[in-house]
């Protein structure tokens, strides 16, 4: 039975996501479900997934769907993860073929339970993609591997085209919304380490706004990311996935997002993709094609 109410949930007019009803969307949805392929699109309840899947793009979630950390903004399941699935790379390969992806975005749950944080598994998946499809580009959105430089090097040895790691929020809010094992400083170190191992790779990061940060803190975060070698940064509006996650503090206007992108271009020569709908891998292929690493 439906509940009658005159109260309307409060979202500003720019928080609107259109869900197409295209053949492509249904094909991708059915393929992912049937073949048991995890995507962060679904696990993180990304509001863009209707649009992205209808464009036949998706971000594959590697090493299972259970994260060993418990960040309070994230809807990915938390707990004790399962052992890595050696057949995962075969499913991903099959899906890349089915979706005819030109640009492959991979991400992972954090695996503090594994000695190498899952680096070897990730590297094997990337190597297999590169072996099968030498012309396809691969972007990896990695965990912090607890700052383990060897693990980062293992991932980079598989030659991804883009290495990404998100700082998620401005420095002051890190301890409030990220798991206690995470730190802003460590995330910057991960990005810097990756750049030091491969000067030509594109380094990317991203963070959310709308969690209580100030404009000065956003600009400082952009400056910090530029200093450690990032070429691309994404900034998007935090949206509370369900009532169990931390609530939105404010909705940032499209003008403010635009200001951040312009400011970063002018002051830091940094490519910033900023907007209410922007997520880490939103239109990632376009931005990778239009950005240089070294």
């Amino acid at each position, binding site marked *: 039975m*439906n*509940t*009658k*109410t*005159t*109260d*309307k*949930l409060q*979202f500003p007019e720019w*928080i*609107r*996501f*259109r*869900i*197409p*009803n*295209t053949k492509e*969307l249904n094909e991708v*949805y059915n393929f992912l479900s049937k073949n048991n392929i995890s995507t962060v699109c679904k696990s993180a*309840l990304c*509001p863009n*997934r*209707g649009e992205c*899947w209808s464009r036949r793009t998706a971000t594959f979630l590697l090493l299972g769907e259970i994260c060993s950390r418990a960040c309070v903004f994230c*809807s990915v399941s938390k707990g004790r993860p399962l052992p890595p699935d050696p057949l995962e790379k075969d499913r991903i390969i099959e899906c890349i073929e089915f979706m005819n992806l030109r640009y492959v975005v991979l991400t992972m749950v954090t695996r503090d339970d594994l000695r190498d944080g899952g680096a070897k598994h990730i590297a094997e998946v990337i190597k297999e993609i590169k072996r099968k499809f030498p012309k396809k580009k691969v972007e990896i959105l990695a965990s912090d591997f607890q700052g383990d430089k060897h693990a980062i090097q293992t991932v980079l040895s598989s030659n991804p085209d883009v290495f990404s790691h998100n700082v998620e929020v401005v420095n002051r809010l890190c301890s409030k919304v990220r798991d206690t094992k995470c730190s802003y400083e460590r995330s910057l170190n991960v990005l810097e380490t990756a750049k030091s191992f491969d000067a030509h790779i594109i380094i990317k990061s991203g963070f959310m706004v709308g969690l209580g940060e100030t404009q000065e803190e956003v600009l400082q975060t952009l400056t910090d990311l530029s200093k450690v070698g990032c070429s691309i940064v994404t900034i998007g509006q935090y*949206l*509370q*996935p*369900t*009532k*169990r996650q931390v609530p939105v503090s404010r909705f940032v206007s499209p003008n403010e997002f635009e200001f951040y992108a312009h400011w970063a271009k002018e002051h830091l020569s940094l490519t910033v993709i900023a907007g209410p709908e922007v997520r880490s891998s939103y239109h990632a292929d376009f931005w990778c094609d239009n950005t240089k690493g070294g």
Partner: protein
Amino acid sequence: MDFYVYIPDEAKSDEPDDKVQVSQWFYKLEDVIQKETDLVEICTDKAVYIVTAPVSGRLKEILVQEGEYFSPTNPMCIIDTDLY
């Protein structure tokens, strides 16, 4: 034939007590609907979604009125597809 329209999986959160609100219908009762045009605007805990019509037909019945909350397991409207 009656086609029951549910909330698309792309807007669901899989939470057992999830409630979704219909904020706006883009068609009136008896209107002829074209597939893939904007049908209804719904509001979840996370965001506002514009749901497009999965089929073409005549809007036979609106099961959730504007402002009402409903369970994602229930249909939002019925489209009569016999026109097509």
